[in-house]
C-alpha cells in the first residue's frame, strides 16, 4: 500500500510538472478518487473538502483583496483502471482578489473511468481568476470526462481558463462551460485537444457579455486523427454597450476524422461588436511542403504542424 506522498508522486509523475508541494507558500489540493491525499492552504485562501462516495465536494473561498502569489496546485486523478470520480466545486473569489490555479487531471491507467466536474464559480468585482487545466489520460481511451462550469464574472473582473488534453487518448470529453460578464468584465476561454482512434470531443462554450465594455474570447484548437470526431459549439452573446468579443475555432483533420464547428454570435446592442472565424481542414499544404522541403518526412511534418497548433501560447 502506497503512502500519501507516494500516491501524490505517482499522480504527478505523469504531468511533467516541476512541483514543490512542500513550499509553504504554495497551496495545493490533491485528490485520488474520492480521497484527499494532500491539502494545504495559504493565508486568505480557505479550502474545505467533503469526501463523497464517488468523489469530493469542495468549497474554495478567497478573501477580498487577497493576492495569492504562487499558482495553486490542484490534482484530481485516479490510478485504478476503473471507477467514477465526481468533483463538485464551489469557488468564491472575493473582490479585488487574485489567484491562479494549475489543475492536473491524471488518469494514466484508465480503462473504464468517468471523471465528472461540476463547478460554480463566482468572481467578485475587480478580481482575477486564472485556471489552467491539463489532462493526462491513458493510451487506452477508456475515459469519459464531463467538465461543467457556470461562471459569474463581476465588474472589471477577469476570468481566464485554458483546457489542455494532448497527452494520451481523449476517450470521450464533453465540455460544457457557461459564463456571464458584468460591466468591464473579461472572459477568455481556450481549449486545446488532440483526438485519435475513436475519440469523441464535444465542446460547448457559451459567453454572455452582459455588461457595458465587457469583453470575451472563445478559442478552440482541435486535432482529430484516425476515426476521431469533434464537435465545437461556441456561442458569444453581447447585450452590453461597447461589449467586444471574438470566437475562433481551428480544427485540423487527418485520416477519417470528422470535425464540426458551430460558432454563434448574437448581438443585442447596436454598440456591441462580435466577430468569429472557423477553419476546418487538413494540414495546410504550404506549411507541409515547407517542412518537407527541409527534409522532414510527411508524417513528421504533419506532427510538427499539429503540435504547433496545440501548443500552449
Amino acid at each position, binding site marked *: 500500500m502506497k503512502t500519501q506522498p507516494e500516491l501524490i508522486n505517482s499522480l504527478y509523475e505523469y504531468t511533467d510538472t516541476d512541483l514543490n508541494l512542500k513550499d509553504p507558500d504554495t497551496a495545493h489540493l490533491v485528490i485520488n478518487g474520492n480521497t484527499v491525499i494532500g491539502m494545504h492552504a495559504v493565508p486568505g485562501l480557505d479550502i474545505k473538502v467533503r469526501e463523497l462516495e464517488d468523489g469530493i465536494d469542495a468549497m474554495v473561498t478567497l478573501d477580498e483583496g487577497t493576492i495569492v502569489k504562487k499558482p495553486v496546485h490542484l490534482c484530481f486523478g485516479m490510478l485504478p483502471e476503473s471507477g467514477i470520480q465526481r468533483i463538485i466545486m464551489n469557488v468564491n473569489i472575493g473582490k479585488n482578489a487574485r489567484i491562479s490555479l494549475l489543475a492536473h487531471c491524471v488518469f494514466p491507467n484508465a480503462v473504464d473511468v468517468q471523471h465528472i466536474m461540476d463547478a460554480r464559480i463566482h468572481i467578485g468585482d475587480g478580481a482575477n481568476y486564472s485556471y489552467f487545466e491539463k489532462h493526462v489520460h491513458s493510451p487506452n481511451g477508456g475515459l469519459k470526462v464531463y467538465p461543467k462550469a457556470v461562471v459569474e464574472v463581476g465588474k472589471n473582473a477577469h476570468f481566464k481558463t485554458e483546457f489542455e488534453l494532448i497527452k494520451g487518448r481523449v476517450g470521450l470529453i464533453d465540455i460544457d462551460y457557461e459564463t456571464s460578464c458584468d460591466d468591464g468584465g473579461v472572459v477568455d476561454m481556450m481549449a486545446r485537444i488532440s483526438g485519435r482512434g475513436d475519440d469523441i470531443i464535444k465542446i460547448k462554450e457559451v459567453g454572455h457579455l452582459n455588461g457595458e465594455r465587457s469583453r470575451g474570447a472563445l478559442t478552440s484548437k482541435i486535432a482529430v486523427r484516425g476515426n476521431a470526431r469533434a464537435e465545437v459549439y461556441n456561442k458569444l452573446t453581447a447585450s452590453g454597450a461597447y461589449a467586444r468579443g471574438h470566437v475562433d475555432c*481551428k480544427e485540423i483533420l487527418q485520416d477519417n476524422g470528422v470535425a464540426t464547428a458551430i460558432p454563434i454570435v448574437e448581438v443585442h446592442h447596436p454598440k456591441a461588436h462580435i466577430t468569429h472565424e472557423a477553419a476546418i481542414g487538413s494540414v*495546410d*499544404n*504550404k*506549411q507541409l*511542403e*515547407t*517542412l*518537407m*522541403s*527541409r*527534409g*522532414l*518526412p*510527411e508524417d513528421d*511534418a504533419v506532427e*510538427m*504542424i499539429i*503540435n*504547433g*497548433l*496545440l*501548443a500552449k*501560447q
Partner: protein
Amino acid sequence: MGILTVKDLTLRLNGKLILNRLNVDFWDGHVHAVIGPNGAGKSTLASTLVGLSGYRDFEGDIEFEGKSIRELGVDQRAQRGITLGWQEPARFEGLPIHDFLRASAKDKSREHIEELLNKVGLDPVNYLYRAVDKTLSGGERKKVELASILAMEPKVALLDEPDSGIDIESIHRIFDAVKVLRELGTTVILITHSLAVLEQAEHAFLMCHGQVVDKGDVKKIRRYFEDKCIPCDHKNIPTQQLIGGQA
C-alpha cells in the same frame, strides 16, 4: 560541372503551357540568378525543381548529381540536398522559431541555432522562442526562412524573390546569408527580377515565356535591366497569347 540539369522541361498548369522545352544547367557551387519578366515561368521552374505538389507532372527530365529525380517527392529531394526559400514564407501557428530551425539543422545545438539567427540579423534573445506566425512581419519571416535554409546546409538552395518584403537595411543580411551558403559550397539559385539580387550572382539565365532566352555572366544579362528589353521579339504580351498553340 552541372549539379542540377534540366532537360527539355515542359510543364502545363490547368492546360496552359508554362515551361516550354526548357534546358538549363546549374553549375556546382556557383551562385546563379534566374531573371525575367512576370509570368516568364521563374517561380514555376523553382517549384518544379524542388518537386512541389502540382508541379510533378512534366515532360523532360531533371537530373541531380547525374541522376533523375523526377520520381522523387519534396522530402526525398530535400534529403538529397535540394531546398526552396519561398517568396512568401509559410506561417506556423504556435511553432517556435527554435523548433522550426532545429527541424532542418544538421547541428541541433542551441548555440548553433542562436548563431543562425544572428547571421540573418535576428537577436536570439527576442526571437528564439517566438512563433513563426502572423506576429512576425514579412521581412522577419523571410529571415527565419533563410536561417532554416542555412541550418540545413543544402547542396542546392533555390531562393524565390529573396528580397521581397525586405527593407533596404535588411537586404544586406540576406546577401550576407547568400555568401555564407556560397562558402558552404551550396549552389544558390536566385529567382528574381531585382537588379540588386542579380548582382549577387556569378552567372545568370534570362527567362521568357517558359524558355531560357539568354545566359551568361551577370554583366551581360544585366543589360536586360539597362535596356528594358529582352532579346526576343515581344514585350508585355501574355504568354498564352504568344505561345498558346505551341508545344
